[in-house]
């Protein structure tokens, strides 16, 4: 449709992935870590769709759909764990989880 060099798509994808990765490493709030994971998964999806449109195949979009499924399952389980954590500890700080016992 438009002529974007595939390297530019990959560079944008890598930039978004790095932003999400820095978020996962730097934030200690588990909710923000989940959101940063979403940004990372999204960046990977962008790379897949870009590659799929480069070769004019549907496989890139299929991989994106599978990533979407993974993200849905991950958010469901992650938010359930967060709700449990909020009930028990009244915060969602990930460092508190190092004191798990039993």
């Amino acid at each position, binding site marked *: 449709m438009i002529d974007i060099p595939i390297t530019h798509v990959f560079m944008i994808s890598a930039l*978004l992935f790095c932003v999400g990765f820095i978020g996962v490493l730097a934030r200690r709030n588990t909710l923000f870590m989940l959101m940063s994971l979403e940004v990372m998964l999204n960046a990977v999806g962008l790379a897949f769709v870009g590659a799929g*449109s480069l070769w004019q195949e549907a496989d890139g979009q*299929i991989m994106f759909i599978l990533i*979407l499924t993974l993200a849905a*399952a991950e958010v*469901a389980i992650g938010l359930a764990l967060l709700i449990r954590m909020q009930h*028990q500890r009244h915060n969602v700080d990930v460092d508190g989880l190092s004191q798990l016992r039993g």
Partner: protein
Amino acid sequence: MNIDWVFYFAALVAFIASIKVVTSANAIHALLYLVVSLLAVAFCFYLLGAPFAAGLEVIVYAGAILVLFVFAVMMFDLQGDNQPVLFQQSWLATWFGPLILTLTLAMLLAYILVTGATDSHIEVGVVSAKQVGIALYGPYLLAVEIASFLLLAGLLAGYHFAKSTSEGEHR
């Protein structure tokens, strides 16, 4: 007509919104910026010739997953960082950043639709939903089955973990 700059502009919007997701202090503001980031990436998908993926991104990601996020944050007060929820801030200050970014995306979309820049060679680079569906239920049928098992496992685990048990309460 050269509309390459629209793609880079949408990517820039996605980048700025993602940085605001990572750096913002309030969970609701971060979720708003995450919605903007997902919409911008959906715009990039559309420009890359993947309209089906763009629709799925808007419907499933920005529509369903983010609503789940907002629902959980507001229902269970998952603010984190031990700071009070600031919903009574100045109206403009709260909404200004996401509003500007979303208006930018809307103007880009209007530009694309009005100029009809994509109509002339719509046949060339687009991978249609029909192709995706045929491939999905042909060679990738096993992957679809595994994805359905993954979703079932997510459903069961979400129910199991979020269910309040009696021994978990008095701690």
